[in-house]
């Protein structure tokens, strides 16, 4: 009982511990650029209460959501097709190998030249950031689908496109969702980075404007807000994921001893 209650409280205790260390550290250093945890936390409600800041943050989330959704719609079918067709794989694999290690934010200057500093440029960077891990995991997932499973489907009369949607997609889903989870975190990272480079609106914009103006408690408060967004999105996605692929979860696999 005690240990269970304790393990439930653990994340909260860890956060409080971190804040305590921060508080102690900043009190000891006592420099202007390192505000105390208390003052940063106290700045959070004032940012969230400010209409303009809220519009900025919602703008960021809107761009992220659209780019994330577009990336999934593009990357999952492409990855699955690569996983099942050697031809498609041999065409796209070299392209992906080149683009994979390039930090997508490094493409931002070029993209800004083409598309300006507006929504489109930022969404394109997020789209690129999300697409690659999702393609990669969809590809791996589709490639690992057992041939005999597809044969079983073919014998039941499923056509090749039906097998793709009704066998390859669900069979690869656990792997696809792992990619999506990585993609979601990358979406948040590229979102902030894009707003840092192309300042105009968004959560990243508030953060870097505050930095320029020396409002350090706002800077730290924004870091807390963005961090909390990341943790919240990830936790929400993880709940969705484990619901969708409950059938594949380990821990649930105690085979019955019965022939």
């Amino acid at each position: 009982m005690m240990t269970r209650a304790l393990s439930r409280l653990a994340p909260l205790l860890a956060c409080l511990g971190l804040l305590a260390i921060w508080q102690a550290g900043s009190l000891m250093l006592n420099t202007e650029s390192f505000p105390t945890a208390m003052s940063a936390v106290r700045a959070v409600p004032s940012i969230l209460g400010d209409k303009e800041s809220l519009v900025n943050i919602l703008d960021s989330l809107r761009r992220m959501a659209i780019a994330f959704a577009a990336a999934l719609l593009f990357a999952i079918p492409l990855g699955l097709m690569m996983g099942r067709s050697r031809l498609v794989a041999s065409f796209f694999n070299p392209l992906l190998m080149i683009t994979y290690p390039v930090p997508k934010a490094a493409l931002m200057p070029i993209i800004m030249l083409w598309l300006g500093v507006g929504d489109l440029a930022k969404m394109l960077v997020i789209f690129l950031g999300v697409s690659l891990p999702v393609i990669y995991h969809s590809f791996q997932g589709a490639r690992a689908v057992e041939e005999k499973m597809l044969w079983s489907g073919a014998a039941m009369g499923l056509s090749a496109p039906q097998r793709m949607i009704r066998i390859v997609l669900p069979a690869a889903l656990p792997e696809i969702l792992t990619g999506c989870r990585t993609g979601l975190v990358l979406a948040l990272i590229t979102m902030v980075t894009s707003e840092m480079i192309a300042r105009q609106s968004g959560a990243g914009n508030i953060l870097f404007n505050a930095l320029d103006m020396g409002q350090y408690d706002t800077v730290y408060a924004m870091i807390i807000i963005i961090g909390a967004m990341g943790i919240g999105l990830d936790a929400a996605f993880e709940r969705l994921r484990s619901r969708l692929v409950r059938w594949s979860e380990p821990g649930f696999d105690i085979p019955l001893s019965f022939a």
Partner: protein
Amino acid sequence: MKVLPSRPDFEADPALARGPAPAMIEIDRVSQTFRTSGRQAHLALSDISLTIEDGAFVSILGPSGCGKSTLLYIVGGFVSPTEGVARVKGRAITGPGPDRGPVFQEFALFPWKTVLGNVMYGPRQQGVKSPEAEAQSRRLIEMVGLKGFENFYPKELSGGMKQRVALARTLAYHPAVLLMDEPFGALDAHTRTRLQNDLLNIWERDRKTVLFVTHSVDEAVFLSDKVVVMTRAPGRIKQIIDIELPRPRRRAELLLDPRYQKYVVEIERMIDDTSEDGLRP
């Protein structure tokens, strides 16, 4: 070969009652060559001809790597032969179809579907309405001994149970031919025996044509009307043996039956005798 008791529908049809049972599967001079990674051509099957009558239980027996599974995949339409042709009910096989239902050693169940979902998959695909497909599937699940496990996921089942589900899933879309690819090969001896018995009981109800690949001599003799013994690579038919043991077969009685023992010993000798193997290219 005369092992099967005549079936009622055959008696009703004088044309069929007179002649031999109609051919369900014809394998006509089939050869299969695979390209190995080192540009070499590997001859897996060489000039196989075989006719399987409707309602017969035929086992293909041979050492591993003799191409016996490949032969089954050709009949399934999953692999097309390099040479020759395979026919089912007189029509050349060009691809998989619901008239030939496979059961694989690897089970190949859909892990995201429950037991019921797996068994219903085929009938639903064939356009059977959901309530009807469910009722049929529940009966099949009961028949294979899994009543009460309808809502379990494959992951929660043992190997033997998974293979029961796979069998029910295939029977659910009423294939004319069952293609069984070492279906009990991954199971422990006890489970294997139980599944062999249950398979025979199920088969004896409706006498589907079964093509059964195995490397176990006991299993082949116990189950089959005919055992096709193959040579080591390249796979050729060494001999076809009619198993004239009475049905329904009971394992306990059969093990004591000298005729059964004789078949087993005879076939084991045949397999050990490698003098004919791989002499011709």
